[in-house]
C-alpha cells in the first residue's frame, strides 16, 4: 500500500504573514482574533479578487504556498474542510434579505456564502478539473478532508492531493456565539492550561497541505492513520489504545501528543482524561498561537509537521514539562463539545 506524505504547507493565521513556530515573538490570543491578511495582489487578479470572500482569498494564498513548496502543479483532487464556510457573506446576504425585505438583492454574497465556494474557486484559478469536495462537519471538517485524501492516496490511483481547512470570523455570528457562551467575552481570562472561564478565544485562518504518495526532500511527515468520529463507542482510553495498537504503537511510543485544548473550562475535562493517559508523554498545544475555530486543528497539523521535520520542540508549545528525546510519532487529538472527534497519527520520514 502507498503512503501519504505532507510535502507542502501554507497558512494564513492570526500571526504575522510568514510566521514560524520557531520565531521568538507571538501575538497573544485575545477574546476575538482576526487573521493577518497577506498581500493578495501578486496572486489574484483584481478582476477575480474583487468579489472574493476573505475565506476564499486566505485559502487561495495558503493553497498556493502549499503547492509551491511541494512543487505540485496538478493536484488530482482538491478537498476543503470548513465549519461555517464564508460566513461573512452569509451574514451579508441574510442582513440584506432582512433589511431590504427581500428586495434589491445581488448574487455575489449568495455565491460566496455557499460552503463549496472555496474549493470551487481554487479549482477555477488552477483550472483543475479533478475531484473536488467540501466537508462541513464542524470541528473535524478538516480531518474529514484529510481522511478523504488519505484514503484516495492509499487505495486509489492518485498521487497528489491538495487539502485545506478554512474558517472566517463574522461580526454578527460572533455576537450570537457570545449570547450562548460559546466564545470568550472582552476581559475574560484566557488560560489554556487551567481554564477558568467558559468559551473559546475565537479566531480565523486557512491552512492548506500538499499531500503526495511520493517522499521528497521537502517532506515534513507521513500521515500514518487517522480516525474521525462523532462519539466514543468504548471509553476514551481503550479507543485510543486500540487506535495506537492497530498502528503497532502504544502510549509509550508516542513522542509528542498534540492537544486541541481551547481554553474553554467546559471542554477541559475531556482533554484532562487524555492527559492522564499520557502523563509521561510530552504534551503540546497550539490554539494559544492560532486561536480557536472549527478548522484550527489544521494549524495543529502544521505545527506537528514542522516539529517532526525539524526535530525540535519549541518551548512555547509545551503543555507539560516533559521534553521529547526524539520526535518520531505524534498523535493529534481534537474535538468540540464532546463531538466531532479526531485522532491523527504522524510519523517521521
Amino acid at each position, binding site marked *: 500500500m502507498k503512503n501519504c506524505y505532507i510535502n507542502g504547507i501554507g497558512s494564513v493565521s492570526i500571526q504575522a504573514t510568514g510566521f514560524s513556530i520557531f520565531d521568538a515573538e507571538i501575538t497573544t490570543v485575545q477574546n476575538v482574533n482576526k487573521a493577518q491578511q497577506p498581500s493578495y495582489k501578486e496572486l489574484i487578479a*483584481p*478582476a477575480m479578487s*474583487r*468579489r472574493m470572500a476573505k475565506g476564499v482569498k486566505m485559502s487561495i494564498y495558503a493553497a498556493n504556498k502549499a503547492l509551491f513548496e511541494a512543487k505540485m502543479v496538478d493536484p488530482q483532487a482538491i478537498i476543503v474542510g470548513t465549519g461555517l464556510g464564508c460566513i461573512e457573506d452569509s451574514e451579508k446576504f441574510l442582513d440584506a434579505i432582512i433589511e431590504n425585505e427581500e*428586495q*434589491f*438583492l*445581488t*448574487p455575489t454574497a449568495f455565491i460566496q456564502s455557499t460552503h463549496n465556494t472555496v474549493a470551487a474557486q481554487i479549482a477555477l484559478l488552477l483550472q483543475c478539473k479533478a475531484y473536488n469536495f467540501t466537508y462541513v462537519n464542524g470541528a473535524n471538517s478538516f480531518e474529514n478532508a484529510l481522511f478523504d485524501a488519505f484514503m484516495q492516496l492509499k487505495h486509489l490511483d492518485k498521487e497528489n492531493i491538495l487539502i485545506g481547512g478554512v474558517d472566517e470570523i463574522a461580526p454578527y455570528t460572533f455576537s450570537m456565539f457570545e449570547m450562548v457562551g460559546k466564545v470568550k467575552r472582552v476581559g475574560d481570562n484566557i488560560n489554556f492550561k487551567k481554564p477558568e472561564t467558559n468559551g473559546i478565544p475565537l479566531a480565523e485562518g486557512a491552512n492548506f497541505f500538499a499531500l503526495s504518495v511520493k517522499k521528497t526532500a521537502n517532506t515534513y511527515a507521513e500521515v500514518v492513520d487517522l480516525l474521525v468520529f462523532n462519539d466514543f463507542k468504548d471509553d476514551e482510553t481503550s479507543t485510543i489504545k486500540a487506535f495506537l495498537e492497530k498502528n503497532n504503537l502504544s502510549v509509550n511510543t508516542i513522542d509528542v501528543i498534540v492537544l486541541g485544548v481551547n481554553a474553554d473550562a467546559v471542554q477541559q475535562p475531556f482533554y484532562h482524561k487524555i492527559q492522564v493517559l499520557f502523563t509521561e508523554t510530552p504534551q503540546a498545544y497550539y490554539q494559544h498561537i492560532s486561536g480557536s475555530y472549527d478548522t484550527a486543528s489544521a494549524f495543529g497539523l502544521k505545527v506537528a509537521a514542522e516539529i517532526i521535520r525539524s526535530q525540535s520542540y519549541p518551548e512555547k508549545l509545551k503543555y507539560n514539562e516533559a521534553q521529547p528525546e526524539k520526535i518520531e510519532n505524534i498523535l493529534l487529538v481534537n474535538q468540540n463539545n464532546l463531538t466531532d472527534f479526531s485522532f491523527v497519527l504522524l510519523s517521521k520520514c
Partner: protein
Amino acid sequence: MEALKKELKERIINVLNLEDITVDDIQDTDALFGDGLGLDSIDALELIVLLDKEYGIKLADPKQGKEIFQSIETMAQYIAQNRTKL
C-alpha cells in the same frame, strides 16, 4: 445626460467593487463586457439589480441586459428613457 453617465460610472465602480478603476478610466463607449471592462455574467446580474434599485427599472429576463449593458452610453440612454425613480 453627462451627469447621469458620471453617476452611473461611480455606481458601477462601487457596486462591482472595481478597486483599481476610476471614473476617468471608463469611456462612455467602452465595452463593459468582454474585452473592455471585462465584466461577466454575475456582474450583469448585479447591474440588473442596480437598474431596479436606483432607477426603478425591472428586467425580467437577464438576456435583455445584453443590449442595454453594451456601454455606459447605451445604459445611460436606456435609463433616461425608462427610469421610474428620479
